[in-house]
């Protein structure tokens, strides 16, 4: 009997050791997990994920749980696939005060909010390098508007939305002299440099953006933000780093202080101060570009802003000391707690909105001030700390069951913790070095929950090797049960910094299938083949062209050498998924991709005498290959 017990003990010990030997992250393949991510042919995904493209300047649209990529939405960068940013219609979308800037670093997609929940109208995203915010329409999944933000360097803490999309907040990652001028870099910490917080107003009817107000801020680096909801509706919370104001070897210099700050910013008060005339007229040139419905982009050059000095608006902001270089400043669904993961801290500080409101009543809680902004006593606003959660906590989102999920870069994991008790309940490994994470509706008053995506910075050995440059990796977790479960691992395009996810049911039935031809407002658009024509004006030639399965009109295009030819191609189709393409031999421009009912223009220089073919580049029909014609260039 004793021997039998020993044998059983030995066998189970061997089994345990053997299982430990399995490579981490090769989830013991739960056929259960495979079922959860399997979307059968013809079936649809449950959730849309909008992932920023980081250094590709675009947005990737994925289906969750299958993790299939559906579309890349061009935003700040040229997209030769459909001529975004190159053709005559969209090129002015990329016009800025610095000229045509055809690239940017896009970080944070933000879905529009109503009552603190995603409403599925628009998607906003920041351009970090040439400070801009773009608005994407979620019926067409196209970029419809881009606004440049003046007096800003590094539009990183952006575009974080208030509870009803009243404003998009935008604060600076880099501090600079405002206005720009020649100053010794060493003067940075001496009040010569500034950061700024911009309030970008969003029209509730059509989503149009405008610069309402800018506030000068101390020369810190403002990293991320979330705006309040419910009780904290009037406030937005910004994380800061480099409050040391180091200007060289910043990796060391910015990491000296034991605590940096979360800046609590009262946007309602800021607007009231502006209305009371306390903001000054200030310089700042910027562009505001938008696409009217099915017509070429309009680029407006704007000049001047209202600038508020926080000294002139007491109570507009407070600094909440927060352990070491916090990354996220994330508001929980109730609007009461603000979780701030300190990148270099061993705790996650959780501030309390109600304690903040009480604390600012009593000056004894003020330990100092910068630019008229009081610095609070750490304990006076603190609800508590999540002790030893992980290494390098960054960004937090929330589920519908009272749990928070914080990404941890250094220990490469997601920690799940209870918002009320601040106890860690689970460690979920990420492969490798997670940056942001995303829960479906994870910043909403009522999160949808169910899925969590970890957006990782380092890929290494996760996929088949493809040379040196690798796709970023992401992991999908099921968080619906009491224990989160790893479901799948998939590559992503560009470098997704952050993603937002929304149930498919909120978008899929209102997506547009065609541009109605009768609503085409393009000045060179035509409604039928009968109107197809060639109009010469000096050495400018405008070809009013139509495309429909499977031919172009007019039949003949004849021009003179030295002419500049504008092919204005209207796709007469009114059928779902029948775009036509257009490319001319010898063109220096990318092909056009024209949606049904849309007009797009390609500029073509007739440089040499000869006969040049043009053709449809998008396989449209059984006779697509025959969809080809000529342009003749005579001396």
């Amino acid at each position, binding site marked *: 009997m004793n021997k039998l017990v020993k044998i059983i003990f030995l066998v189970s010990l061997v089994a345990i050791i053997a299982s430990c030997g399995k490579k981490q992250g090769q989830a013991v393949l739960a056929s259960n997990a495979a079922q959860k991510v399997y979307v059968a042919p013809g079936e649809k995904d449950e959730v849309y994920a909008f992932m920023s493209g980081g250094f590709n300047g675009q947005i990737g649209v994925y289906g969750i749980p299958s993790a299939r990529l559906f579309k890349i939405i061009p935003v700040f960068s040229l997209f030769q696939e459909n001529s975004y940013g190159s053709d005559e219609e969209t090129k002015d979308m990329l016009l800025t005060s610095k000229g045509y800037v055809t690239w940017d670093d896009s970080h944070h997609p933000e879905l529009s909010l109503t009552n603190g929940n995603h409403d599925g109208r628009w998607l906003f995203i920041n351009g970090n390098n040439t400070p801009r915010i773009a608005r994407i329409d979620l019926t067409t999944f196209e970029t419809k508007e881009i606004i440049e933000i003046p007096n800003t360097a590094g539009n990183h803490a952006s575009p974080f939305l208030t509870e009803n999309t009243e404003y998009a907040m935008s604060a600076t990652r880099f501090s600079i002299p405002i206005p720009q001028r020649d100053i010794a870099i060493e003067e940075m910490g001496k009040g010569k440099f500034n950061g700024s917080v911009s309030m970008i107003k969003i029209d509730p009817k059509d989503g149009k953006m405008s610069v309402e107000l800018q506030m000068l801020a101390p020369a810190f680096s403002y990293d991320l933000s979330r705006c309040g909801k419910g009780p904290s509706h009037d406030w937005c919370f910004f994380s800061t780093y480099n409050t040391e104001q180091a200007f060289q070897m910043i990796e060391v210099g910015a990491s000296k202080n034991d605590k940096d700050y979360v800046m609590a910013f009262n946007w309602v008060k800021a607007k009231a101060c502006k209305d009371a005339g306390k903001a000054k007229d200030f310089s700042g040139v910027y562009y505001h570009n938008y696409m009217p419905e099915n017509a070429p982009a309009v680029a407006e050059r704007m000049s001047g802003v209202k600038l508020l000095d926080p000294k002139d608006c007491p109570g507009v902001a407070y600094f909440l000391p927060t352990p070491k270089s916090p990354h996220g400043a994330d508001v929980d669904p109730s609007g009461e707690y603000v979780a701030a993961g300190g990148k270099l801290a061993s705790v996650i500080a959780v501030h309390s909105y109600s304690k903040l409101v009480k604390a600012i009543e009593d000056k004894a809680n003020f330990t100092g001030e910068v630019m008229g902004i009081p610095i609070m006593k750490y304990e006076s606003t603190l609800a508590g700390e999540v002790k030893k959660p992980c290494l390098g906590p960054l960004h937090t989102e929330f589920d519908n069951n009272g749990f928070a999920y914080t990404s941890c870069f250094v220990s490469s994991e997601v920690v799940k913790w209870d918002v009320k008790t601040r106890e860690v309940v689970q460690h979920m490994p990420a492969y490798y070095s997670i940056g942001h994470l995303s829960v479906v509706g994870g910043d909403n008053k009522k999160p949808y929950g169910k899925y969590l995506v970890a957006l990782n910075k380092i890929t290494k050995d996760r996929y088949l090797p493809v040379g040196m440059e690798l796709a970023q990796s992401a992991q999908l977790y099921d968080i619906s049960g009491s224990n989160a479960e790893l479901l799948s691992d998939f590559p992503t395009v560009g470098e997704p910094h952050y993603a937002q996810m929304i149930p498919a049911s909120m978008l899929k039935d209102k997506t547009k299938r*065609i541009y109605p031809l009768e609503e085409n407002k393009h000045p060179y658009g035509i409604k039928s083949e009968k109107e197809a024509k060639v109009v010469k004006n000096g050495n400018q030639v405008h070809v009013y062209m139509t495309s*429909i*399965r*499977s031919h172009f009109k007019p039949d003949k295009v004849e021009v003179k050498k030295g002419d500049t030819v504008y092919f204005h191609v209207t796709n007469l*189709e*009114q*059928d779902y998924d029948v775009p036509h393409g257009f490319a001319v031999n010898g063109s220096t421009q990318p092909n056009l991709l024209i949606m049904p009912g849309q007009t797009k223009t390609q500029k073509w220089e007739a440089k040499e005498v000869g006969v040049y073919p043009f053709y449809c580049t998008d396989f449209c*029909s*059984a*006779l697509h290959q*025959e969809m080809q014609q000529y342009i003749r260039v005579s001396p």
Partner: protein
Amino acid sequence: MWTKKLTNLNRWLVLLAAVLMVTVYFMPMWYISLEAPQYPEGLSMYIWINKVSGGTQYDLQNINLLNHYVGMKEIVSSSIPELLFMPYVLLYMIFGAVVTFFLPRLYMIGLGIVNLTLVAIAGLADFWRWEYNYGHELNPEAAIIVPGMSYQPPLLGCQQMLNINACSLPSAGAIILFVAVTILVYIIWAERKIYLENKGD
């Protein structure tokens, strides 16, 4: 028997038939649906008393686009003369029913049934002829010519033509006309019963 005066109830039933026929102006008579692998949601068209329309705003244009590959003529309401005079034929039927209300004799009902049946037969025959011509009179310059192939849609039921499965079915208007005829037939049956009972007495 045919000169018998209608009962009051049957007089009103005739007027009901007239009202039903008026509604036919506002609904399609026939429905043709097309399904193909490339059109998972299908394309469709409705034939009304006075026009042809697409199942959606754009279906007719898209049907014409597909049809042009095999050389079929474009479907345009104004090029179908039947659609110009059919509304007047229906108006004549309604007029007949109203006259019957004021001249409630059984022979008027008989006349109505005969007229409606003739119109229905003529209409369906004409529709078939239209479908025949439409499916056979193909442009010899068409891009796709399949020897021996014609594209006549069925009058009733479904048929596979190349990659397209076409189905043709009566729609609300035709069904209402059928109900109107049925009412008239019922009136004859009811009046005959009364006539025979009276005769027996």
